[in-house]
């Protein structure tokens, strides 16, 4: 039901919620969706609260930790700082969309075999940041891996096994692509 807008402090501002909803079409994990949400909401809120895609984590909610990293058009973005309303027609990938046809992405299997996961809170963001790197650089050096992952904080692993896992995934992906030829 529509309520009259009152002139008051920000917290007291009441608007017509139905009219104020923002409607956009976008693609999330290969599925085209039409969503309606309040324009002030972040992509992270829409993913986690509306779509139940809870792979992207809310760590600091301020763009400092990288736990909410998702890929928008193959580039890593912080979902906690991205207004969902800005994503009309965009293609978004979260960790839920990475494994395909019942098999893990090479990054995911490398993270498992190398022991790069401890508590797991940073893992979705790290894997997606690493995927963005491997998409544009098939054979990164250790320095390039570090540069790509610098925005993702991890408190448990000490980063060594994460770096090893990303380098291993690069090898797996290269072996895959040469095997297919």
């Amino acid at each position, binding site marked *: 039901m529509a309520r009259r807008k009152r002139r008051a402090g920000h917290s007291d501002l009441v608007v017509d919620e139905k009219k104020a909803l923002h409607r956009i079409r976008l693609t999330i994990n290969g599925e085209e969706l039409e969503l309606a949400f309040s324009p002030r909401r972040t992509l992270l809120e829409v993913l986690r609260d509306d779509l139940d895609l809870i792979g992207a984590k809310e760590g600091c909610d*301020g763009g*400092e930790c990288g736990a909410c990293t998702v890929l928008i058009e193959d580039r890593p973005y912080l979902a906690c700082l991205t207004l969902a309303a800005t994503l009309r027609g965009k293609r978004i990938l979260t960790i839920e969309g990475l494994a395909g046809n019942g098999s893990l992405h090479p990054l995911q299997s490398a993270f498992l075999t190398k022991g790069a996961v*401890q508590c797991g809170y940073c893992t979705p963001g790290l894997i997606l940041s690493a995927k963005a790197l491997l998409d544009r650089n098939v054979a990164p050096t250790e320095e390039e891996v*570090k540069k790509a992952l610098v*925005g993702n904080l991890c408190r448990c692993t*000490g*980063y*060594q*096994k994460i770096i090893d896992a990303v380098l291993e995934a690069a090898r797996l992906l290269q072996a895959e692509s040469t095997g297919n030829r």
Partner: protein
Amino acid sequence: MADLRVVGHSHPRVDGVEKVTGAARFSTDIKWMASHDIGKVINPIAAEGQIEGALVQGVGYGLMEDMIRVDGRTFNPNFLNYRLPTVQDHCRMGTIFVESNDPVGPYGAKGVAEPALVASAPALANAIYHATGVRITSLPITPQKILAALDAKEKRSPDGEA
């Protein structure tokens, strides 16, 4: 003594400090080794991960993490001002397990996680002493402290190398 855990930490090789910022630079070709008695090693990869994680937490505890309180309030309650080690602060690490059998623990194992953290800050302090010749005795050993100590040393002996 059944409870002795830390067998030894080598210190990471610090090649030197940045002249302008005072930031310590880790050597890229010498590993930081940590040797621990954690009883029976049940899952080697997970155990290595625990030690490596503790060493990098030690980089934070030794070099950057500083919770500043003003009138009882935390002044830097975020990751921008309370610096955690990022992947750029990682240096190559290695682990050596000295296996023993702890009759009290499950299958002879001891706990592992924080014990590895204990020796890391002193190891870093030694590394910085070896690289720069200045001994810093309070944690964290921030670039500002290193620069101030180097300046003080230079004033004491103007001819000597800083």
